[in-house]
C-alpha cells in the first residue's frame, strides 16, 4: 500500500466535537511544531453552534513557509464518530487515520489506501482518571502524546507549553503529563514510530510570533490611543473588542486610582455602536467599533452621515460568509462593495486590506491617523480566516517616537487668530477642512454638525451651488486620500509578461504560493497586492501594462473586480476572475487550477530571473 511520506510538509486535521475541550490540545500541537522552528498554519473550522456539533482543526506544516490552506489531509485524528465517514474520505491516498480504538471500528469505515492507527484513548483515560470530565479532557492530551511519538514532536517542548498553560493551576500539570505519556508510550509500543511523515527541528521561524488578526487589530487600537470602543457581539469580530478590553485593562488602568483610561460600551445594536463612535470622535476622542457583514448593513445610515458630515470613524469589518446570516463561521471577502459604498447617495469609503496579523496591527494603528487626517470613515477589511485563526507573523513593532496624527484640529489659540472660522472651508485646497472640538473656545469655533447640506460655515442650505461645492470638495478629498493610504505592493514587474495577478487580504498567502508553484511550471506572473481603496494610479498602470490580469478574490460576484472596473474605468475584459467562495480559505491549488484552465494551450511560458518570491 502507498504511504505518504514527507518531512516538515503535511496537513494534519483533527475532527472533534464542539465543547469537549479539544481546542487547547490542538493548539498545543500546533504551537509545539512552531516551537520546533517549523512554520505552521492552523485553522479552526467550526460550526455556528456552541456545543455538540462536529468541529475541525487543521494544521498545515510547511518547511517552505507556505501558510495558506492546502487541500488533502495527510493524517487525520478522528475522535468524533459522527463525522468519521466524511473524515476518512478526506484523507489522502496513503495517509493516516488516528482514532479512538476503545470501541472496534465498524467495517463501513475501513477504506483501502488509508493506514489505521488505533489508540484506546477513552479506555486509558477511564483506567487512569476518575472524574468523568477529566476522562473527557485528557483524551485530547492522549492523542497529542501519541502524535508526539508518531510524528516526532519533542516531548520537552510540549511539556513546557503545558507548564506555562497551567502555571496558575499547578495541580493540573502532573495529570496532563501523565496523559501525554500514556499516548506516547502506547503509540511507541504498538506502531513503528516515527511514521513516514514526520517532523524535524529547524530554524525557520526566527523571532516570529503566532497571533490571530483580531488580537493584533485590538493592539493596534491600543497603540493608536483609542479610548472609546462601542460594539455589538457578532462572529467573527467579537474578539477584537474583547482583546482590546483585556489589553486596556492591563495597560490603561491608572495605577494610583484603579480608574480606567478607556470606556467600552456593549451597545444595544450595531446602529448604536456606530452612533457612539461618531459621537466620541466628534468630541475629540479616538473611537472604534468592530463588526461583520450584517452589522455593516445596520451601520450604513450612520456611515453615510460620518462621510457627509466628515467625522472620523474607524470600523473593523471582520468578514464572514454572506449574504444575510449566510455562513457565520466561515470566511469570505464578500463585503467589498457594501463597505466601499455603504449608505445611500454618492458615498465612498476608504478600505484597508490587511493580509497578516502584523499588518492588522499596523493598519489598525494607521486607521486612526487616517480617520483623523481625512475626517472620514476608515473601514479595515479583515476576515474570519485572518481574524480568528492564529498566523505566524513577524513580531509587532512600534516606533516609540511615533505621535498620533490628529489631523486638522484647531486649538483655542489657533481659533483666536482666525477672523472667521468656517468648518467646511477648504483652506489648504486639498478638500480637507479644519475641525474644532466642542468646548475648545468660549466664543469661536462652534459649528453645527448635520447630515443635511450646508455651506462652508456649516449653515443649513438647500442651494444647488452650495450642495455641489460640498460634494465636489468631497471628491477632491477622495483624490487627496490616495496619497495618504498604503500603496500597493508589487512583487514583480518585468513588463515582459503578458499576464499579471492582483490579490489582497488573506488570499495573499495562497496567491504567493501559487506564484511560486506556477514558476516551477515555467509560468511567471507579475503580481500586485492591493492594500487600500481608493486605488492609486499604479493599479491602473499595472492593468494597462498587461494583456490579462487575474483578480483573485473570495466571493461569488467578483466584487473586487467590479470595484476596479468601476473606479479605474479599465476594460472588464482584461480582468479575469479567480474565485473561491465556499467559505474555506482559498488554496494555492485552486488558484493554479483556475489559472491553468484560462491559459490558452499556446500560452508563452515566459520566464524571467528577477522573480523573487516573498513571504508575507
Amino acid at each position: 500500500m502507498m504511504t505518504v511520506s514527507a518531512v516538515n510538509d503535511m496537513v494534519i486535521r483533527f475532527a472533534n466535537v464542539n465543547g469537549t475541550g479539544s481546542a487547547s490540545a490542538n493548539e498545543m500541537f500546533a504551537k509545539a511544531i512552531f516551537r520546533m522552528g517549523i512554520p505552521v498554519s492552523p485553522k479552526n473550522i467550526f460550526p455556528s453552534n456552541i456545543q455538540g456539533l462536529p468541529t475541525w482543526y487543521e494544521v498545515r506544516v510547511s518547511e517552505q513557509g507556505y501558510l495558506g490552506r492546502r487541500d488533502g489531509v495527510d493524517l487525520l485524528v478522528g475522535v468524533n464518530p459522527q463525522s468519521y465517514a466524511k473524515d476518512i474520505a478526506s484523507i489522502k491516498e496513503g495517509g493516516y487515520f488516528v482514532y479512538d480504538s476503545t470501541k472496534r471500528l465498524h467495517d463501513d469505515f475501513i477504506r483501502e489506501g488509508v493506514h489505521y492507527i488505533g489508540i484506546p484513548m477513552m479506555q486509558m483515560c477511564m483506567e487512569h482518571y476518575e472524574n468523568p470530565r477529566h476522562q473527557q479532557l485528557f483524551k485530547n492530551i492522549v492523542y497529542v502524546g501519541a502524535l508526539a511519538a508518531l510524528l516526532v514532536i519533542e516531548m520537552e517542548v510540549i511539556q513546557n507549553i503545558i507548564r506555562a498553560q497551567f502555571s496558575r493551576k499547578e495541580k493540573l500539570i502532573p495529570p496532563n503529563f501523565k496523559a501525554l505519556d500514556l499516548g506516547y508510550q502506547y503509540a511507541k509500543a504498538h506502531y513503528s514510530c516515527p511514521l513516514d511523515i514526520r517532523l524535524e527541528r529547524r530554524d525557520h521561524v526566527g523571532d516570529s510570533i503566532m497571533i490571530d488578526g483580531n488580537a493584533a487589530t485590538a493592539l493596534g487600537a491600543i497603540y493608536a490611543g483609542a479610548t472609546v470602543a462601542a460594539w455589538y457581539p457578532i462572529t467573527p469580530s467579537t474578539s477584537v473588542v474583547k482583546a482590546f478590553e483585556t489589553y486596556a485593562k492591563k495597560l490603561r488602568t491608572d495605577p494610583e486610582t484603579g480608574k480606567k483610561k478607556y470606556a467600552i460600551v456593549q451597545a444595544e445594536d450595531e446602529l448604536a455602536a456606530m452612533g457612539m463612535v461618531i459621537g466620541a470622535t466628534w468630541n475629540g476622542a479616538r473611537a472604534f467599533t468592530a463588526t461583520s457583514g450584517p452589522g455593516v448593513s445596520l451601520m450604513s445610515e450612520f456611515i453615510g452621515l460620518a462621510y457627509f458630515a466628515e467625522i472620523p470613524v474607524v470600523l473593523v469589518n471582520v468578514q464572514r460568509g454572506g449574504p444575510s446570516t449566510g455562513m457565520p463561521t466561515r470566511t469570505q471577502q464578500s463585503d467589498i462593495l457594501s463597505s466601499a459604498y455603504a449608505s445611500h447617495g454618492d458615498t465612498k469609503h476608504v478600505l484597508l486590506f490587511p493580509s497578516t496579523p502584523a499588518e492588522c496591527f499596523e493598519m489598525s494603528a494607521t486607521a486612526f491617523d487616517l480617520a483623523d487626517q481625512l475626517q472620514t470613515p476608515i473601514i479595515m477589511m479583515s476576515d474570519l480566516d485572518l481574524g480568528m485563526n492564529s498566523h505566524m507573523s513577524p513580531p509587532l513593532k512600534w516606533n516609540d517616537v511615533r505621535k498620533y496624527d490628529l489631523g486638522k484640529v484647531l486649538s483655542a489659540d489657533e481659533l483666536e487668530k482666525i477672523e472667521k472660522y468656517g468648518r467646511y472651508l477648504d483652506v489648504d485646497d486639498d478638500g480637507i477642512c479644519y475641525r474644532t472640538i466642542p468646548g475648545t473656545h468660549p466664543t469661536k469655533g462652534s459649528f453645527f454638525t448635520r447630515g443635511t447640506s450646508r455651506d462652508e460655515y456649516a449653515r443649513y442650505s438647500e442651494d444647488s451651488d452650495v450642495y455641489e461645492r460640498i460634494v465636489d470638495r468631497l471628491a477632491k478629498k477622495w483624490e487627496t486620500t490616495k496619497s495618504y493610504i498604503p500603496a500597493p505592493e508589487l512583487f514583480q514587474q518585468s513588463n515582459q509578461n503578458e499576464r499579471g495577478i492582483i490579490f489582497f487580504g488573506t488570499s495573499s498567502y495562497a496567491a504567493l504560493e501559487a506564484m511560486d508553484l506556477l514558476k516551477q511550471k515555467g509560468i511567471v506572473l507579475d503580481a500586485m497586492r492591493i492594500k487600500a481603496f481608493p486605488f492609486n494610479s499604479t493599479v491602473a498602470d499595472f492593468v494597462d501594462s498587461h494583456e490579462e490580469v487575474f483578480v483573485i478574490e473570495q466571493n461569488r460576484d467578483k466584487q473586487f473586480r467590479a470595484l476596479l472596473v468601476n473606479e479605474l474605468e479599465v476594460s472588464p475584459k482584461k480582468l479575469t476572475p479567480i474565485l473561491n467562495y465556499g467559505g474555506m480559505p482559498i488554496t494555492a491549488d485552486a488558484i493554479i487550477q483556475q489559472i491553468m484552465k484560462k491559459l490558452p494551450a499556446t500560452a508563452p511560458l515566459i520566464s524571467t530571473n528577477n522573480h523573487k518570491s516573498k513571504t508575507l
Partner: protein
Amino acid sequence: MTFVKPAFRHPGLPKNKIGFRKADYEGAISTLCAGCGHDSISGAIIQACYEMGVEPHKLAKLSGIGCSSKTPTYFLGNSHGFNSVHGRMPSIATGANMANRDLIYLGVSGDGDTASIGLGQFCHVLRRNLNMMYIVMNNGCYGLTKGQDSATADLGSVSKAGSVNPFEPIDLVGLSLELGASFVARSFSGDKTQLVPLIKAAMSHPGFALLDVLSPCVTFNNNNGSTKSYDFVRDHIEATSTVDYVPEKDEITIDYEEGTSSSVVMHDGSLIQLSKLSPHWNPTNRDSAVNRLQEAKAKGEILTGLLYIDPKSKDLHKILDTVEQPLNSLREKDLMPGQQALDKINASFR
C-alpha cells in the same frame, strides 16, 4: 434657509453671573411655524441657561430629525450642535459623553424621533444613566413629515384630517419610570414658569434626566379632538407640585411652610424646592409616582411637574469607573504603552 440675527446688542442689557447677556444664549432665527410649541421650549432653554450661568461652549446640544430636532439651531449659538439621523441622537450623545464627561449634554428629540424609530436607543441611554438632559418635544404627531400620528398619540385622538387613532399610546414618562430613569419630569410648552426650573434641575442632575414636554403642533395637531392641542392640554393639566430650583452657589434660604413645601437636595448642594399642590407628594418615591401617573391617566388628567428624582444617581462614567480627566484630553504619555510593553506581548505569543 437660516436667517441671521442682527449682531447689535444694547450695551445696557443685564448680564448673568459669568458676564453673558441673554442674547448670548440665543441662536439663529427659528424657521418653525409661528406659534409652534417647540419655539417656546427653545425660549425656556435660553432662559434657564442664562439664569444658570452656563458657559455656552461647555454645553453640547444634540438632536435627531424632526421639527423638534431642528430647534438646537435656534438656541445657544456658541455651543457645538449635532443634528444626527432620525431617532439615533442617544447613541451620539453616549459617545460624546464617553469622550468628554465635562460638558453639559442637552438632547432634543420629538415624540416620533424618540417613541418610534428611536425607542430602542432611548431605552438604552436611559438604562445606562448617561449624564444628559433629554427633552422630548411631544406633539403626538410627526410635524416635519406633515402630521401623521406618532406613537404617543392618544387612543381616540383625532388628527387634522379627521382620522381617529386606533392604538394605545406609549407614555414616555411611564416608560421612563418603569425603566428606572433617575429623573423624570413632564411639562407643557405653554407653562414657562414650570418648565424653566425643571430644565435647570435636569441640567444639574448627574444622570439621565427626561423632560417630556407637551408641545402642540399648531399646523397639524391643534384641532378639535386632538389630545395634544393647546386647549386640550390647558384644560387637562394637573401639576404634582410647583418647582423652584435653587442653585448651590446662591445662598440657600428656604421659605418653608410646614405641609405646603419640601425640598430635594441635589448632588452639588443645589435645592429643588417643591410647593406641594397635591398632598403628600414625594418626588423621590418611584412607586408613588407610578401610581399617581396611573390615577391621572384614569381620570384623563395630564400630570406635570417633577415626578421622580433619585438624588443618589450614578452616571455612566461612575458605573464604568473611568478616570476623572476627560478621555479626549489623554495623549501619548497617558495612552501609549511603548515598544517595551509590546516586546512582552510579542513574547507571550511565542
